[in-house]
């Protein structure tokens, strides 16, 4: 009797509400949340040390894309990542993570160095897109992205990509070519922003939630499409609720990927990477 009573009492407790199924548009909001971990939050929580290095050796040091060598447990790696900035001043300086050609060229310069000394590369992708500016065009934004795609396709060192927030089109893709593509649970990755797509195909930017749905931009969708390899879980409510747990999950997934990839020779790695790239959307 007593036992039965207890059971009844327990089940009478307020049931845990089932997790709300987030729409693609909900995830866009989470992915863009200013409190979401930024590149330097990831670096602080994932690396035991980090030395940032600057400049493309041509014209500039782009603050929209950060690069440097760091240590993750016992792995010496090159870190590349978009930098949205944590304060208004930083946002302005880094164009909210919209990199210039100089940023992509800095990334390639240091990736070449990493290749020479067999450092794996870890990239953190979080950008609305490549910067649409006058100088960016004059200095060859298109060429810099194109070169990056060709360059990372043939780079002889393991590359692990983590889509952490917004994977905005070509500006994201330029540092998202690699052997293992990880994506955080609430991140989004798309060929065009939902607003941009809605503006063109719906002729109304307000239709962005519909466009977000149609474009299939969430981690689960992209896993099904074969565009990414693994989804990294986020703490309840999203990465912005608990940076430590979010970063710990990322660290674990990155280390596992590096250890797997280090088993391959450079040539095996390149063949596998090419086969993966070749398989994207091959329905024919």
């Amino acid at each position, binding site marked *: 009797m007593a036992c039965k009573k207890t059971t009844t009492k327990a089940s009478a407790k307020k049931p845990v509400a089932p997790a709300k199924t987030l729409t693609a548009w909900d995830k866009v909001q989470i992915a863009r949340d200013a409190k979401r971990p930024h590149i330097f939050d990831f670096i602080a929580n994932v690396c035991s040390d980090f030395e940032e290095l600057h400049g493309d050796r041509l014209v500039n040091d782009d603050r929209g894309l950060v690069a440097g060598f760091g240590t993750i447990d016992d792995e010496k790696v090159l870190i590349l990542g978009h930098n949205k900035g944590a304060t208004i001043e930083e946002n302005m300086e880094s164009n909210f993570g919209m990199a210039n050609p100089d940023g992509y060229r800095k990334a390639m310069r240091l990736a070449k160095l990493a290749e020479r000394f067999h450092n794996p590369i870890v990239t953190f992708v979080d950008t609305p897109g490549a910067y649409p500016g006058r100088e960016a065009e004059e*200095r060859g934004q298109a060429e810099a992205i194109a070169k990056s795609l060709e360059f990372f396709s043939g780079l002889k060192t393991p590359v692990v990509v983590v889509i952490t927030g917004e994977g905005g089109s070509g500006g994201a893709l330029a540092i998202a070519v690699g052997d293992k593509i990880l994506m955080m649970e609430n991140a989004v990755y798309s060929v065009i922003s939902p607003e941009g797509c809605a503006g063109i195909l719906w002729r109304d930017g307000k239709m962005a939630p519909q466009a977000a749905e149609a474009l299939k931009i969430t981690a689960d969708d992209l896993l099904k499409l074969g565009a990414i390899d693994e989804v990294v879980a986020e703490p309840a409510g999203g990465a912005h609720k608990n940076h430590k747990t979010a970063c710990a999950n990322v660290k674990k997934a990155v280390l596992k990927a590096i250890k797997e990839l280090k088993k391959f020779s450079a040539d095996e790695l390149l063949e596998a990477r090419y086969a993966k790239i070749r398989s994207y959307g091959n329905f024919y």
Partner: protein
Amino acid sequence: MSWFEKKEGAQIPPAKALWAVCPKCKSHFEKSVWKDNNSICPKCNYHGRLSARERIAQVADEGTFAEVFRAVSYSDHLEFHDATGDYKSKVEATIKKSGETESIVMGTCEIEGHKAMLGVMDFSFMGGSLGTGTGERIARAAEQAIAEKRPLIIFCASGGARMHEGILSLMQMTKTSAAIGRLKDAGLPYIAVCTDPTTGGVSASFAMLGDINITEPKALIGFAGRRVIENTIKQKLPADFQTAEYLEKHGFIDKIVERKDMKHFLAKMMGFWGF
């Protein structure tokens, strides 16, 4: 990223049926004048758009063009639909109207006797957008070019990636770039011809990866759209921004080649490199 389409059922005013307007200098010509001048503006020398077939006829030696990969067409893996309808119907209508099955026509040919793999994009096919079929054709072309030791030449004309095919259209930027990287590693040349317009994801992949990048007078070439840039930087851009001439001045184009000289120029360059 953007691409353009005619609104269905739009009425063509009678004047438009008779007159061709140069999109650059806005001069009016009788349509026959425009056409007889090979779609080049008699006044400002803007080199207008050509269909893929017109272009092939002007570049390939007569009777040498053998089309490949025609069965590689589009894919509606997202079952994409927007306010104006579904992607599948739009692209099927385009296929029916144009007779093409993708935004690039690919084939082997000879150019003044030089063997080549030639790809020509057609802007009238979904704005020349880069779909999974387009990317697959280019990757296969690069691989066949390696096997047959042919230089690769691609005439680009595109608004960018095809958003109806979502993330996998973006991935074609990587696929084409990786395949072209392999072609170069195999010791073969790649010539990119950026014709009007070459923008967005196409400019940010195979269009800018030529061992030489060439173009035609007054072609529009750029990554981001003019309006997007002006809204971002809150400034007016110069009139010649993102033109062939502007890009040549800034060092991203090797040469602006007139249409009448294009075939000979391509042949000559292949000759320089021993092909």
